[in-house]
Each structure stands twice: as structure tokens, then as C-alpha cells.
């Protein structure tokens, strides 16, 4: 059982100046779990997610990824990050590179994969996200939904063991949200461990194994989607859900 633990956080706290954004979060995420984090803006969802790969440095507490305490000084965070993909709200594709180069850069430079091998992986992944014909395009020539699908392919090219999604559909036009969620769904069904910060309640209900409700830096609800959506325990969860559903 303990071998299946992918992420463990222990009393994770994060302050920005005097503002306490995370007030002590302890939880465990196991292999192949799809966890959705919901909650009002400013509740610390994104900050929590960004602490998991140290884009944000926790103030105290620890984050343990597959047995490695990444908050320890001796941890090689670059190495840990190769195992965890991240998808951002604003895509963050590299605008000066073609779609293909966006995807192959990290495997070539970080993992030392050969160019042909990296390109094979990239073309394969582009096929999976339905954008094979866009390999030679530049990010500026793509729609938002296409950009986000490329960003997912770019993260997957490192063959990560888990994926972090930071509001992946929040910057998209409504008609493009579906295409990105479809890619994420198929990823979930393939058994990828995923942590998704999202406002897409439909996705959370349908795809996730677990839903966390966060408010004011704390996890107030941590249960199956069915229980969280239909039988929330905390009054704040109830009031939040009544506003968004």
C-alpha cells in the first residue's frame, strides 16, 4: 500500500508576507488517483498545486514525492520534476519554437533522448491529442484549445508519473473547453495519476476519484465526488456548491 503513495504532504504551510495562503495541509495521493481540487478563488488551490513541484516554496511542512522529500535541501528538484508534468492556465508554450520543438526540447535537453526518438514520441502524442497536422506550426497560429492540448502533449513527452493541472480550461473560450477535457479524460482512463485544480464541476463529478474542497487555505472536504457534491459535510462547501452548480 505504501508503495502506491505518489504524493504526501505533511502540515504544508505557505505564507505570502503576512498572508497565510495555506494553513497546514496534510494529505496522501496514491497511484492512478484522479483528484480534483475545487473551491473559491483565493482559497489556495493553485498555490497548493504549485507547492507540489516547488514552483512555490512552502513556508513550512513537507512534500514527499514517491518517497523523496522535495522540501529537503539535498533534493535535486530538477530530477523530481522530470517525473511530474504540469499544465498551466495560460498554456505557457514557447512562442519562438514550433509545436514539435516545444514538445521535444525537454526530452532532448533534460533526458538526453535522441532527436529522432524525441520526434517519434512527439508525433505520437500529437496524434493522441488530435493535432498531428500542427507539428510544424507555431503557438501563435493555434487556438486556445489547441495550445492547451499541445501543452499537455509537451508535459507528457517527459513520460511523467503524475500530472498537475492548474485551471487548464479557465483561459479558454467555452467551445474549446470540451476538446481539452476530452484529452484529460482519456489520460485519466489510461491510469495517469492526476491532480486537477478546476472550476469544471462536470469533469470533477464524472472523472475524478476524489474531490477536495478548499477554502481559506484549508481542505474542508476530501471525499468521493458523489459524497462531496450530493452530501457535503461542511457548511462552506454547501454554500459554495449552491453558487456554482
Amino acid at each position, binding site marked *: 500500500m505504501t508503495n502506491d503513495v505518489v504524493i504526501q504532504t505533511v502540515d504544508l504551510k505557505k505564507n505570502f508576507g503576512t498572508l497565510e495562503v495555506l494553513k497546514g495541509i496534510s494529505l496522501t495521493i496514491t497511484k492512478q488517483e484522479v483528484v480534483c481540487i475545487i473551491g473559491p478563488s483565493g482559497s489556495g488551490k493553485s498555490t497548493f498545486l504549485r507547492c507540489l*513541484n516547488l*514552483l512555490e516554496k512552502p513556508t513550512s511542512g513537507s512534500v514527499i514525492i514517491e518517497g523523496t522529500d522535495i522540501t529537503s535541501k539535498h533534493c535535486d528538484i*530538477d*530530477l523530481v*520534476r*522530470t517525473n*511530474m*508534468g*504540469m499544465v*498551466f492556465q*495560460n498554456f*505557457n*508554450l*514557447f*512562442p*519562438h519554437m514550433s509545436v514539435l520543438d516545444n514538445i521535444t*526540447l*525537454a526530452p532532448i*535537453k*533534460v*533526458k538526453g533522448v535522441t532527436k529522432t526518438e524525441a520526434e517519434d514520441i512527439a508525433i505520437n502524442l500529437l496524434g493522441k491529442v488530435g493535432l498531428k497536422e500542427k507539428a510544424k506550426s*507555431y503557438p*501563435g*497560429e493555434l487556438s486556445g484549445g489547441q495550445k492547451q492540448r499541445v*501543452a499537455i502533449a*509537451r*508535459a507528457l513527452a*517527459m513520460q511523467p508519473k503524475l500530472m498537475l493541472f492548474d485551471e487548464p480550461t479557465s483561459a479558454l473560450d467555452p467551445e474549446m473547453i470540451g476538446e481539452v477535457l476530452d484529452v484529460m479524460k482519456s489520460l485519466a482512463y489510461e491510469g495517469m495519476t492526476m491532480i486537477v485544480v478546476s472550476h469544471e464541476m462536470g469533469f470533477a463529478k464524472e472523472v475524478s476519484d476524489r474531490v477536495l474542497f478548499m477554502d481559506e487555505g484549508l481542505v474542508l472536504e476530501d471525499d468521493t465526488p458523489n459524497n462531496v457534491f450530493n452530501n457535503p459535510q461542511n457548511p462552506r462547501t454547501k454554500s459554495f456548491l449552491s453558487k456554482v452548480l
Partner: protein
Amino acid sequence: MGIYNWLVYVWGKMPILLEGALLTVQLTAIAVGFGFIIGIFAGMGRISKNRLIKSISVIYIDFIRGTPLLVQILIVYMGLPQIIGRPIPAMVAAIVSLSINSGAYVAEIVRSGIQSIDKGQTEAARSLGMTHSQTMIHIILPQAVRRIIPPLGNEFIAMLKDSSLVSVIALEELMRKAQLIYTRDYRPFDILIAASIIYLIMTLSISKLVRFSERRLRTSDK
């Protein structure tokens, strides 16, 4: 009559003036070239997390930008020989002082270019496991360089004009050539107007070139 007279006189001096102008362009190109290399490092050093590197860069940039170029030229040409005990050729002194001067200005251009790149670019690269230097080399600098080409062109123009100051150490660039001619002929107005026009033609052509490359980059960077 006046203009015709001026044209005939200046035409006769043109070979000497153009010889000086050629040296002016060469000096400027070398200074901005070295300045670019110095500036990349000083500009990155300026935003480095390493306190020592940051302090050295800040002191360098502030000192150079806060003191007159003329003083810097004289420190290298007159001051340094006193310390090292032998003279420095004017050409070497000119290149060294102009490069060091240009480097400080380029550093600020590089710094603002790097800082203008969205933080998300760094985060995306780092989240893929790239190191800080890999991120700089493959993601940040290539994008920053495109943005700093226009201000770098302005720096080139500024340096082209400022290089006239090395005339004080008797380096025969355009300004010094003009001085040599008018101290002999006593027609300073005629020759200084001619020199100005040559400077103007050079600076205008460079800004044309910068605008052209800017447009080229914009179309290739859709």
C-alpha cells in the same frame, strides 16, 4: 556662391573625413560587439540570486552610467599607465573604454529584456525539469534577444555619436580628422557642418536598418 564654395572645399576634404568616418564605424561596431558580450553577463548578473555577482554587476553598471564617458576614456588612457607603468596605445584605450561603457548600457537593456519575458515561460521550462541555465539559454534569452534588438540599435547610434569623444586622445576618427583640418585651414564652420552631415547619414541609416530588422523579426515571430 556660399554653398558652391562650401561644396568644393568639403569635397576636397572628403577622403580624409571618410577615412575618419570608417574608423568611427569600426570603433563603434567593436565597442558595441564587446559591449554586447559584457552586457549579457552583467545584465544577467544584475538579476542574479547570487549576492556577490549581483553586487559586482550593480557597482559596474552604476559606476559606468553615473560617470562621464570622457572621464572613463581618460582614466584608461592617462590613468591606467600610471598604475601599470607603461603607456597604453590610443587605439587600445579607445576600444577598452568604449566597450566597458557600452557594456553597462547594454546590461540594462538585457536586464529589461529578460524581465519582460513572462514568468510563465520560466515556470513551464522549470516544470519540465530544465535547469536554471537551460531555461535561460533555450527559452528566455532567445525571446529576450528579439525584444532587445531595437534598443540595441539605439545604443549603437548613441555609441556612434559618443565615440567622437575619443578625439581627445588623438585617435583619428571622424571628429579628430575634422579638428585636424580646421586647425590648419581656419574654416571650422565648413568642416564641422560636413562632419555633422556624415554623422547624420550614419545614424539615420542605422535606425533604418534597425526598423527593417524589427519588421523582419515581427513577421517571423507570429
